[in-house]
C-alpha cells in the first residue's frame, strides 16, 4: 500500500515536474551558460567561454546601479505606502464592508485592470494638452508640473502603482481584520480598553504575520515592476525611470548585448533568492 502511494504520488506530480523542467529548468541552464560566454545572435549555438566578463560589464555600467537603486527605492516606497493606506482603509471601512460586502467589488476593481493598460491610460490622463489632470491644474492653479519629467517621474509612478495595488493590501488586511474573533475585542472592551488601545494591543499584534506577508508581496511586485512603468514612461525621463526589469529588457532587445543582459538576469535571480531566504528565516524565527 505504501509503495503504491509512493508510485501514484510520483505519477500525479510527473506532468507538472516535466513541464517546469522544460519551461524553467532549460531557460535557467541557457541563462547560466550564456552569462559566462561571448555570444551574438549569429553565433548563438557556439558560445565562447569568457569567464565572468559579462558580470563585470553589467556591474560596472553606471545605469545598472541607477536601475537597481530605482527598483529598490520604488519597491520600498510603494510597499510602505500600500501597506499603510491599505491598513487604514481596511480598518476604517470595516464597519461599512461588514454590512455591505459588495462595496469590496468597487475597491477590488483596479486589480482587474492590466498594469500595462493602466500605464497607457495615464499617458492620456497626464498628457499636457488632452489630459484631465494637467487641465485641472491649469484651470484651478494656473500651472501644471511636468508629471513625467525627470524631476517628478518617480513620484508619479509611485502614485500610479500605489493607487492600483493598495486594493490588494486592503483586501488581505480586511480579511485578516474580519477574522479576529469578536469576543477577543469584547473582552478587551470590558477590561476598559479604548479603541486605540484595542488597535495597538490586540488587532495589530494579531495581524502582524499578515502585515509582514502583505509587505513582502507588495515589495516584490513593485521591485520587479515592468508593465506600467514601461508603457507610461518607457525608459523616458532621461533614463531616470529604468527599473531592473526594464534594464535587462533593453540590454537584450535594444542593445542586443546578450551576455550582459543574461548576466544581469542571473544577478537579479540571486537577489530574489537572497530576499526569499531572509523572509524564510524571519518567518521561521517567529513560528
Amino acid at each position: 500500500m505504501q509503495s503504491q502511494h509512493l508510485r501514484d504520488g510520483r505519477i500525479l506530480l510527473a506532468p507538472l515536474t516535466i513541464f517546469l523542467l522544460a519551461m524553467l529548468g532549460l531557460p535557467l541552464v541557457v541563462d547560466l551558460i550564456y552569462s559566462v560566454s561571448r555570444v551574438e545572435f549569429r553565433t548563438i549555438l557556439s558560445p565562447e567561454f569568457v569567464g565572468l566578463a559579462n558580470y563585470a560589464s553589467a556591474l560596472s555600467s553606471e545605469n545598472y546601479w541607477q536601475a537597481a537603486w530605482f527598483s529598490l527605492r520604488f519597491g520600498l516606497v510603494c510597499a510602505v505606502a500600500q501597506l499603510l493606506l491599505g491598513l487604514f482603509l481596511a480598518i476604517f471601512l470595516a464597519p461599512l464592508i461588514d454590512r455591505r460586502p459588495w462595496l469590496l467589488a468597487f475597491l477590488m476593481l483596479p486589480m482587474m485592470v492590466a498594469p500595462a493598460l493602466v500605464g497607457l491610460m495615464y499617458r492620456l490622463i497626464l498628457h499636457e494638452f488632452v489630459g484631465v489632470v494637467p487641465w485641472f491644474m491649469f484651470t484651478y492653479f494656473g500651472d501644471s508640473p511636468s508629471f513625467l519629467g525627470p524631476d517628478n517621474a518617480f513620484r508619479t509612478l509611485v502614485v500610479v502603482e500605489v493607487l492600483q495595488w493598495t486594493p490588494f493590501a486592503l483586501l488581505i488586511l480586511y480579511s485578516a481584520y474580519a477574522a479576529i474573533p469578536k469576543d477577543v475585542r469584547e473582552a478587551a472592551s470590558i477590561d476598559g480598553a479604548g479603541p486605540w488601545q484595542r488597535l495597538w494591543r490586540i488587532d495589530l499584534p494579531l495581524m502582524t504575520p499578515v502585515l509582514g506577508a502583505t509587505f513582502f508581496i507588495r515589495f516584490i511586485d513593485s521591485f520587479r515592476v515592468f508593465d506600467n512603468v514601461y508603457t507610461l514612461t518607457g525608459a523616458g525621463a532621461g533614463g531616470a525611470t529604468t527599473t531592473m526589469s526594464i534594464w535587462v529588457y533593453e540590454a537584450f532587445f535594444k542593445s542586443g548585448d546578450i551576455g550582459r543582459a543574461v548576466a544581469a538576469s542571473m544577478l537579479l535571480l540571486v537577489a530574489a533568492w537572497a530576499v526569499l531566504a531572509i523572509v524564510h528565516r524571519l518567518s521561521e524565527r517567529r513560528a
Partner: protein
Amino acid sequence: MNFLRWLVFAIAALAMNFPVLSTLVTSFKSEAEIASNPSLWIHAPTLANYLDVFRISDRFDILHYLWNSFASSILGAGLSLLLAFPAAYGLVRFGTGRKWLLPLVANLRAIPLIVFAIPLYLVYARVGLLDTRLGLALILCIVNLPLVLVLLVAALRDLPAELDEAARVDGASTFTLLWRIILPLAAPALATTMVLGFVYAWNEFLFALILTTRDAVTTTVGASFFFAASGGGVRWGIAAAVMVLSVLPPMALGLLLYRRIGQSLAAGAVKG
C-alpha cells in the same frame, strides 16, 4: 462618523478607479471635443470612436488582438489547472514533493519573470514558437502556476480524507478516485481558480511584448500600438475606446465574482 466613512470610501473608490473612469469618459468624446475639452464632462456624447476602432482594422485589428488574448488566456489558465490539479492531490494526500515542489512553485511568484524571458525567447526562436498563441499560452501557464497550485492545495486540504478511504475500500484506484470523487467536489474551487488564472493571463504584458510581433499579439500589447501611431500623433478617442474594450472582460469577471475572487486572493497571499 458613518458619513466620514462613506466619504473616505467614495474618495478611495474614485481615486483607485480613476484611470478607467477617465478613459471611459474620453472614449465617448469626439476627436474635436477631446482637443478642446479635457474635463470629465462630455458635451456631445458619441459612439464614433467605437465605430472607428473597427474601421481601421486593416492596420490595427482589435478583434484579432482580443481573440489572441482570449485563446491564449483560456489555454494558459486551463493548462495550469490541468498540471496543478493532480499534483495538488498528490501533494495533499501522499505528501509527494511537499518538501521541494510546493516551495519551489510558490516561491516562483517572487522571482522577476524577466530572468526567464531572454532564454525563452532564444529557445522559442529555435523551435518556432515565437509569435504563436500556443507559445504564449505555455508561458501564461508558468505565470499562473504559483497561485493556481497554492489555491488548489488549499482547497483539496479542506476536503475530508474519509471520502478517499471509503472509495479505496470499494477498490477504486487513485486515478478513478481523482476523476470520480475529488474532481466534482473540487469543481467550485477549480472554477474560481480558472477565472483568476484567466484574468492574470489576460493582463500579462511582458512576455506578450517579447514573444509576439504580429500573428499572436494580445490586447495589452495591441493597445500600445494605438499610442505609437505614425503620422499626426495619437488619436486619443480611438485609443481610449480600445482600452475600454480591452479591460471589459476582466473587469466584468471581477464584478460578477468579486466575492470568490477576493477570498481566493486573500487565501493565496497568506498561504503562499
